């Protein structure tokens, strides 16, 4: 049975570390600029036509 206790300790401590990191990151406004990345992917569509020197403005 020692194996399962070892397992519980190991898995719970890793889970706690992850939970702690999550709470910490939320409290520290870690994901505040989670706004731009999901939008950015929508606007990077390259020109549909393959004209060599067509320039597009991004950002």
């Amino acid at each position: 049975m020692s194996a399962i206790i070892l397992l519980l300790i190991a898995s719970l401590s890793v889970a706690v570390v992850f939970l702690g990191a999550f709470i910490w990151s939320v409290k520290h406004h870690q994901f505040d600029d989670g706004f731009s990345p999901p939008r950015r992917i929508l606007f990077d569509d390259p020109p549909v036509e393959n004209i060599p020197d067509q320039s597009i403005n991004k950002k």
Partner: protein
Amino acid sequence: MEIEKFYYDNKTVKWFGYAVMFWGIVGMLAGLWAAIAMYYPALNLGLPATTFGRMRPVHTNAVVFAFVGNGIFMGVYYSLQRLCKTRMFSDTLSKIHFWGWQLIIVAGAITLWAGKTTGKEYAELEWPIDIAIAVVWIIFGINLFGTIIRRRESHIYVAIWFYIATWVTVAMLHIVNSIELPVSMWKSYSWYAGVQDALVQWWYGHNAVAFFLTTPYLGLMYYFLPKAANRPIYSYRLSIIHFWALIFIYIWAGPHHLLYTALPDWAQSLGVVFSIMLIAPSWGGMLNGLFTLRGAWDKVKEDPVLKFLVVAITCYGMATLEGPLLSLKSVNTISHFTDWTIAHVHIGALGWNGFLTFGVLYWLIPRMWNTTLYSKKLAGTHFWIGTIGIVLYAIPLYWAGFTQSMMWKNFTEEGQLRFQFLETVTHIIPMYVTRSIGGALYLSGALLMVYNLRKTIAKGNFIANEAAEAAPLPKKIPTHGKTYWHRWIERRPMQMLVFSLIAVAIGGMIELIPTFLVKSNIPTISSVKPYTPLELHGRDIYIREGCYLCHSQMVRPFRDEVARYGEYSKAGEFVYDHPFQWGSKRTGPDLARVGGKYPDSWHYNHMLDPTSMSPGSIMPSYVWLMDHELDTSRTGAMIRAMRKLGVPYPDGYAADQAGKDLARQEAVIDSSLRADKIQAGRNKEIVALIAYLQRLGKDIKEAPKEQTASK
């Protein structure tokens, strides 16, 4: 800042897209073949290659590694370039990756049809192909990480994280599970035996579902769903949590495939706990996908791409709720070994993987050919045919699985089993028929798609190199105020790779190492002896013909199973089983204790024509076993390999004595067959198979006798 001009490589994406369509149709056809063979066994045409036991691995390998595999690469090669604002790292590597993967698929199909198999589900391919897979996977990795390193966009979008986790974990799973000892060019034995082999195999099997069928497709969902709906993902934060939680929890859930088997109890419990925990991140991901469409449901009505994606995500949600519920011991008691499992995986396979792939194809191909879809209406028809196909596929199998399980467990008032095994099979045949109709509908929908996309391609102009522009990545990334660890890590793919590997490896190691180290997990049973050379040959034939795909060798400790099959299975019985053959489905009865149950002649007649011994049986005839001669030139190599794996054959046994023992046992079985007026010919394969079947479960039956004798 200087704007750089570059081109996206669409050619590789195109080739992978063609491969998806081609292998998708091939894989589904193989599946339909296998589904019909379940009620019409004569469909095998009397040929070994087209028999269920070989068609089934061809089907699973084709749809998983060829259809979905190419689907992953198609989606990754398209989205990664755009997310990183750069061309793929190396066109040469892309080409090697593409052709290498297709070669592996072709080699896999040929060898599986030829009966070259390791006998481990979803990892059937033999060792040379295993090595090729590892090489191609590493090439993919170089291309993947090379692209990420050369990116022009500092933020690593969530989809890329899923790709990274996929690459790392699949590499690890594949290598660990494929450790095997080659006996010849196309034959190897698993390094692990019995319980260990089962644990490693289902750790792999479960995580192949997690990291080959789920995480890469979640990455695709996080890219293609916002693109198709033209709105950002509902919650980017949720997607970050989804990712971390999923990779951390998924790796632990493998043992839920082995509930109530001879696997140590603690490992089973651990698997169950983590399986239940999986509901949270999985549903977080599903809701994140569905909520992305808030306020855009009118688009779903119009756009076939969104229709496919919505059903795919819904099926992901259904399958990831059902999976944890199936891993509860009380539910698993009913569902395991039945068609319920098959229904469950097809909700995932047909709904989640299939429909997401279709959605991506419908979105990608018009774009890469700079045109519009040939027929929206036809795509709509495909959607409805496919959806009805899934329903017609799954519901009969849920019904069949539940019904059969209830029949297995049914006792009369006198305490006798109410139904013969065969009665429970013939009872559900109508459900098998309906299932194959559902599968046929799904396949015809896919054919409509191929036609539609072919027409789309015909009217468009392919853009092989798509122009794009972006500013290069600044050497030093300006930070606003304090930097946080997550910000730091998402700019560093290599560190990220290392951390993901550590997170995943901790999970795997904690679960595996104790079972290897703790000897008490596998109580040794003194009466369990290594297989005789003839039995070993028979076992190889058993594996070659894929018997394990319909017959389990694992009696669970339930009243009905003990009454039907005999004493429940013990861990110590499998110590010489390289690989284990517990199976995962009982289309036919369990064989763990079949040894000595019937005379040799019964087995001979049964293999020749199963219906002659069991009227109504859906087992195909294995007539070729009566003609093929046993290849005894391999005996020495087989014994030597087993010795290397720790099976205690005496010194020098392989050289001479093994051959003599083999001939002696052949003669015994031959004379017993002759007594029943069967002229088999002692050197035929059937004799070896009978030797193996008659051995199954016998050792433990002799245990009590030995004890009394020693007293």
